[in-house]
């Protein structure tokens, strides 16, 4: 085990050498802080994402009063037309929605994907074939259509964030399972795994003690790279009106609403659009950097 190759130290080294990845981390941390401290930041601003401020609107048209969509000391990112709701508060709380759903869905995908992938690779046989076949089916599944349909039929009594996490997370497991399975296939032929089995270790023990430590690198890479997709998926569903229900702020819904106003109030599209871009870009370049730093082909911990 080379200390320089441990996951945290590899990340640190990557951040020193890979400026793009560093930029990605900065973006993620920035948005993460905004999401975590949304209450505090909007309290400093003196706003919240729900209150209507008709006084901040132009009385003839309902557009934000002032330039740049009503950007001012009181409303840092301006206000929404027709409602006067504070755009900064919406973007900040929208970050919380995006991060929570994106990360929670990724967690669901990772847990499912690792368990199914590692067990398929390790146990083999008909079980392996069934998992691979199922993963292929789900990879080719028109999941967006399925989610839209599901969003329309699931009763309103089911909490929407939970539904989004479960559904988005569920459709993410096959790509993780495939990578974990192939890693497991190579690992289980290694001597240390054979030795453990020869000593009578059961599958769960082998998975936990022998396989998992060596799977972390690929898992972290593939999970990080799948976060932007999940954030984008939540935004897409909200954009289409089957994601987060109003009034919970969501970037996708804000972007959807802003499209009608793009000619008269482009800032309304720019702020949530930029936030969504930053989040997906940040996770993407960070994941790329991680992959370069932790090339799993050269890495085996024992």
């Amino acid at each position, binding site marked *: 085990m080379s200390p320089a190759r441990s996951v945290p130290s590899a990340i640190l080294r990557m951040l020193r050498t890979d400026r793009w990845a560093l930029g990605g981390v900065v973006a993620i941390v920035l948005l993460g802080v905004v999401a975590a401290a949304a209450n505090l930041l909007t309290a400093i601003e003196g706003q919240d994402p729900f209150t209507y401020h008709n006084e901040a609107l132009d009385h003839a*048209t*309902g557009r934000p009063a002032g330039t740049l969509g009503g950007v001012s000391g009181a409303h840092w990112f301006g206000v929404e037309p*027709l*409602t006067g709701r504070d755009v900064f508060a919406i973007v900040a709380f929208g970050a919380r929605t995006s991060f929570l759903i994106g990360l929670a869905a990724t967690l669901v995908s990772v847990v499912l994907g690792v368990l199914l992938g590692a067990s398929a690779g390790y146990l083999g046989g008909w079980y392996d074939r069934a998992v691979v076949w199922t993963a292929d089916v789900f990879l080719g599944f028109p999941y967006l259509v399925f989610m839209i349909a599901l969003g329309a039929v699931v009763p309103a009594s089911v909490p929407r964030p939970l539904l989004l996490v479960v559904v988005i997370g569920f459709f993410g497991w096959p790509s993780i399972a495939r990578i974990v399975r192939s890693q497991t296939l190579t690992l289980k032929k290694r001597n240390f795994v054979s030795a453990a089995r020869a000593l009578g270790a059961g599958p769960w023990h082998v998975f936990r003690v022998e396989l998992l430590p060596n799977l972390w690198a690929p898992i972290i890479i593939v999970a990080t790279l799948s976060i932007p997709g999940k954030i984008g998926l939540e935004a897409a569903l909200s954009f289409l009106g089957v994601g987060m*229900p109003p009034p919970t702020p969501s970037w996708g819904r804000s972007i959807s*609403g802003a499209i009608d106003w793009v000619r008269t109030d482009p800032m309304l599209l720019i702020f949530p659009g930029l936030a969504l871009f930053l989040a997906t870009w940040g996770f993407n370049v960070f994941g790329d950097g991680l992959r370069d730093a932790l090339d799993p082909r050269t890495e085996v911990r024992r």
Partner: protein
Amino acid sequence: MRAVSSGPLAGARPSSRHVRRIATAVTAVVGVAALSACGANEQTPSGASQSDAAPGGTLNILTDSASNPFDPAKSSGLAITSLALVHRRLTSWHIAEGQAAKVVPDLATDTGKATDDGKTWTFTLKDGLKYSDGTPIVTADIKWGVERSYAAAFSSGLSYHKPLLVGGADYKGPFDGKELDSIETPDTKTIVFHLVRSYGDWTWLASTPAFAPVPKGKGAEPTYGEHPVASGPYQVAEYQKGVKVRLTRNPNWDKKTDEVRKGLPDEVDFQLSQDTTTVSQRLVADSGADQSAFGASFVSPAQLAQLQSDSSAKQRLVTSKSGALAYLALNTKKGPLANVKVRQAFQYAVDKSAFQVASAGSAQLAGEVATTLITPGITGREQYDQYQTKPTGDPDKAKQLLADAGFPNGIDNLDFVVGKTNSGPDKAQALQASLAKAGIKVNIRTLDSDTYDSEVTGNDAKYDLVLGSWQPDFPSANGNIQPLFGTTEIGNGGYNISRYSNPDVDSLIEKAESTVDPTEAGKIWAQADKKIMQDSPVVPLIYTRNSFLHGSKVTGFSIADFPSYPNYLVLGVNK
């Protein structure tokens, strides 16, 4: 709503009830001050839209609805919108700006003769009337058309006449061989209706879609509306659900017999399933075939804001002076809403000014705050406000009322149904925010207009709140009150969406309907209006102004005082 909604509808979707129009929003463009400056309505005849075009050309109607069947029995279309291009009725409307709507003869020679104190009505057909297939129109066909509206499969249209005809309460339609004996046709030109009680507005009911002729024996199939036998200036040449409907001239329509339809374009094309925002953008751009097009849906608030800086498009924007009552319906049969104190709390909780801004950007553009059920311009309307408060509402007073009613911690998880069209969801959010201030938490459920209709008018009401909109189907307070608050209108496709039932109100409705003198009837309607509001089954929001955009080559495009929709029958296209 569409909704909701069918507002848009009115024109383009005769099959939807006006409620939906309402649900969605409506937007008005012009404030009082601005009216004279830019309301196309107010333009003097200098505008191209005022002088008639020569006959010819193709008129394009852009609508967001996916279907637009021309089935009179299933239609709730106004007498001046799309259904009337294909089907004539016994009577029709003469509407003009600055004048009260007047009932005028259409297929009949006059507007009907009332005898027996308004319980018997007799109409005579004009000479030489023919269908598109060349056969003569006879009164037996009018009778068949009315009978057909009783059949369960075709019962979704305007139904004011159904309980009024003797025997109508139990009649199940003509397809099992039974006739409705209270409609007599002594000869091919004469038709006599026998009513269960005096009914002064019957002459208006004869202008509703069910009084269009359907050749006796035809129309048994559910798709009749896609290939109907036409009596108006146009016939359906092509019908593609979700795509288009093409109307071409009916060679057997004789302009000399028709005082309400100009029949100017050679062809009228409906483009179905159009996105309303895209429609507005196309009409603003005003290029190619869109120059001879108009949007059947209301112009969205975002588009209105944009139009303020586009002088060419502003010229082609037409806004009504008043319009449908937008209201929040409270399901009086469900949970805490069954308690009148809780319902009254809603009157104070709602922020009507936020609703105005969400509807159209400003109070002037959206229409005035409503406090009564009878809309402005209707005979007998009395302005009053039983729940006086600021336009922004009074959350503290609402909380107090809720606490008195036994809900000191507010109410959670109310199901709030709203139609997707006409920025219904945005308006619903404005209401959601103001209700939240009073401790009432609602979950918005957005439905497309067909689902919305079946949900709110079905027998099994699961919702707590509905955003509705209603414009009378004919210009009488009757049309404001009875369809929304009569006990007979609960479920089964009726629009009593607050499921409100009060025997006192029912008897007032019956009394007013049988009063033949309009002024006397108006007083009783005003009394019913106040009585209903005491029980607070709905929160009146605004009297919604509607705005429409049309292309530069469309002529005759204007909105009269009633209804708040353009008159499709007089539109023409400049070369």
